[in-house]
């Protein structure tokens, strides 16, 4: 693996993150006074002034920016204005819940979406293909909060099979993960299908047939590895969808994750937390995309192994 290439990628990643931090800082700090909504409506002016000094909000914006950047560089994301706790603590305590939910949803989406996509591609233009794709499109045509509430009313209230909300047991995970994963499953199914169709047309698929490889072997050994390579790139984007979806899903199912934290921090205009979260999410996404890039290279021999003829 090429060090210069990795260095370039790392530099780009860092630059992207810096842009994100700056963007968020500028937008949030120019949008109004966070104290007014943070403190109760009838707060005395002295009280407001006290907190303003305490949190450094009385300094000029550039100073606040530099202080913030310096702190972030040292791993200090500040103190939550509302919670009076270090942002990093608040966030890290929520990450496992979101990670559990997100990864379960992703696993679910992969387990449902990829086989459906393969099936649809192999049986192209049959009823099965049409139904599968209609299901896949339906997956993201339903607003996920609505799906979540319908699930709660059906499986918790009426059937009483599953707990309505919260965490604790694997049972708690089922409804949120399904709600969150459905759209991604649909997207994966659609993408896998088109990727498979593309691969199935390739001349080497005909070669395999001419060799006498049975249909199952052709799909699994010849088509799938090649089709999987572009699907990997979609995983990076799916992650964004999952995090976005988590914001809503976690609220519906009272799942104590990063998404809920974000919603409450935004509602409370808790600047430090919003900044920290945006940075965290952006970092996750950027790094995930970096990983996907590398994975892509590792999977595809055409990129992994340089040509030797010249």
């Amino acid at each position, binding site marked *: 693996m090429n060090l210069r290439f990795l260095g370039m990628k790392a530099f780009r990643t860092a630059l992207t993150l810096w842009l994100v931090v700056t963007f968020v800082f500028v937008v949030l700090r120019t949008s*109004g*006074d*966070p104290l*007014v*909504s943070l*403190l*109760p*409506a*009838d*707060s*005395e*002016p*002295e*009280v407001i002034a*006290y*907190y303003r000094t305490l949190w450094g909000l009385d300094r000029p914006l550039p100073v606040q920016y530099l202080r913030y950047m310096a702190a972030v560089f040292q791993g200090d994301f500040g103190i*939550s204005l*509302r*919670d*009076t*706790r270090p942002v990093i603590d*608040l966030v890290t*305590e*929520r990450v496992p819940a979101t990670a559990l939910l997100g990864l379960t949803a992703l696993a679910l989406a992969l387990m449902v979406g990829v086989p459906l996509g393969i099936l649809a591609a192999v049986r192209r233009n049959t009823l099965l293909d049409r139904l599968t794709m209609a299901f896949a499109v339906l997956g993201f045509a339903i607003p996920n909060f609505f799906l979540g*509430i319908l699930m*709660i*009313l059906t499986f*918790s*209230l009426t059937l*009483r099979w599953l*707990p*309505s*909300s*919260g*965490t604790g047991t694997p049972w708690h995970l089922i409804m949120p993960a399904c709600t969150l994963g459905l759209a991604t499953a649909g997207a994966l199914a659609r993408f896998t299908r088109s990727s498979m169709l593309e691969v199935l047309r390739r001349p080497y698929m005909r070669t395999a047939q001419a060799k006498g490889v049975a249909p199952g072997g052709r799909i699994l050994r010849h088509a799938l590895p090649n089709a999987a390579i572009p699907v990997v790139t979609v995983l990076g984007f799916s992650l964004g969808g999952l995090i976005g979806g988590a914001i809503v899903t976690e*609220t*519906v*199912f*009272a799942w*104590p994750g990063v998404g*809920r*934290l974000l919603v*409450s921090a935004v*509602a*409370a*205009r808790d600047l430090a937390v919003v900044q920290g979260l945006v940075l965290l999410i952006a970092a996750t996404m950027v790094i995930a995309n970096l990983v996907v890039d590398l994975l892509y290279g590792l999977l595809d021999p055409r990129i992994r192994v340089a040509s030797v003829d010249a």
Partner: protein
Amino acid sequence: MRSFLGMALAVLTLALAPFGSALAQADTRPDLVIAVDNLWPTMEPVNGISTTGGRVHPSIYDTLLRRRFVGDPAGVEKEPMLATKVEQTAPTVWRVSLREGVTFHDGTTMTAEDVAFTLSSERLWGDRPMAPRGKTFARGFKRVEATGPLTVEIETTAPDPTVPDKLALMIAYVVPKAAYLRMGADQFGLRPIGTGPYRVVSFNSGDAIRLEAFDAYWGGRPPAKSLTFRIVPEFSARLAGLVSGEFDFIVLVPFDQRDVMRRYADVTLLDRQLENYPMFSFDTLPAPDGQPANPLVNADLRKAMVMAIDMDAITDALWGNATFTPSAPFNFPEYGPGYFDAARKGRYTRHDPAQARQLLQRSGYRGQELRWHIVRGFFPNYESAAEIMVEQWKQVGINVQMVVVENFDLAYRRPFHLLNMSMSSEFSGDPMRPLWIDWGPGSNRVAASHKTWVPTPKFLELGQAFEFENDPAKRKALYLQLVEEWETVTPAMYLWRTVVSYAHKKRYEWTSTSSEAMRFDAAHFKVAR
């Protein structure tokens, strides 16, 4: 080897089983789960003043006095809690005698030092208070001092008949001085220690707070083994959880969903009126230079707007008979016969479209757009009422545009003409807070950047006299004059008395309070036989 171990374990389990069940039988108290919409991030009882924090505080802390709601939903009487006696030893001095043998959750014993610290300038009302939000409620405090092991003296700047009422407020939730100073207000808010019936075992402000029975509670063994306040933002999830048995209590049942709740036989639905009235204020001040003139500086327009609204019909439509619109300003039943008269009618507080049109004619209003800033989710049904009111104003030719915003910062940005607010009727046994503290010269409505009126000289004069008047008859007369002066200006209109709905499993008997506070001590909660 392994099978031997397994056998041994099995034998051991069998041998211990009777003890286990005996232990279990020893504590049959329920583990209660209360599904709430949110939790305030700090449980420091003053910095955490809020609906979502106030629900939990009475389980962790005790106040010196408290209002008695058992047997009297209005809670007029105050009962001793950590204070056994509160007496006025001089016009400006009050002596508080404390209960003996009260233990904090950390095992230390409560002393006068703790109480004096709880109410001290260091914590509440000094220059750099540790809990700055206490200032509003500790108005007029001059000296708080421990004068004996179990006595505390409070001196005020002027004679203040409301001191005992203040000792039943959130500022009087007693905290342990040493632990509080050691941890600081912020840390204390995360790992709170009080004298209340339950002690906190874990607190995650994004998820839940868990409390266990504090069996050394001075008031006796608490009736529940544990309490868990869990955040469940979606009503559907709260409802499903209550019905399926995951939750024992849920808060904030939307009014229209009460019929749904009644379908479930093992669920009790409870409406509770609180000491609070959602309202909106008119911006009575001239627009700043460079902005279009504010038509609302004309009092006739304001009065026309009040009279154009059929508030009783709206309240009836949105709330049924769960609450009401007061028939005259500041005519609140919670202040008892002295200040409440069901027959009293306000001068403008009635639906009269004809007179509204007349007033409108006189006001010179020409259909300018009036912006009503509303913070989203400010009060239940507030936006629904606003939508109805906007329609009713349209009928008489008043053009109001509702602007729903995300938070107060945005709501306070001018230009606005109408601004959502609420008035609390809590705090003292008479309308001083809503009428004078909230509309007087120090109030936000006069002083803050989002101020909406300037009190008339007469209002100021009457209010100052009212604040320190001790004679009940004169005090009432001043009150009526103040209300009349307020009405001549009509700087606001209020909608109804706030009502909240709880639901819980039918097997519990529970007494609610007139504030957000939920009490789970033996007096207020028990499991039905």
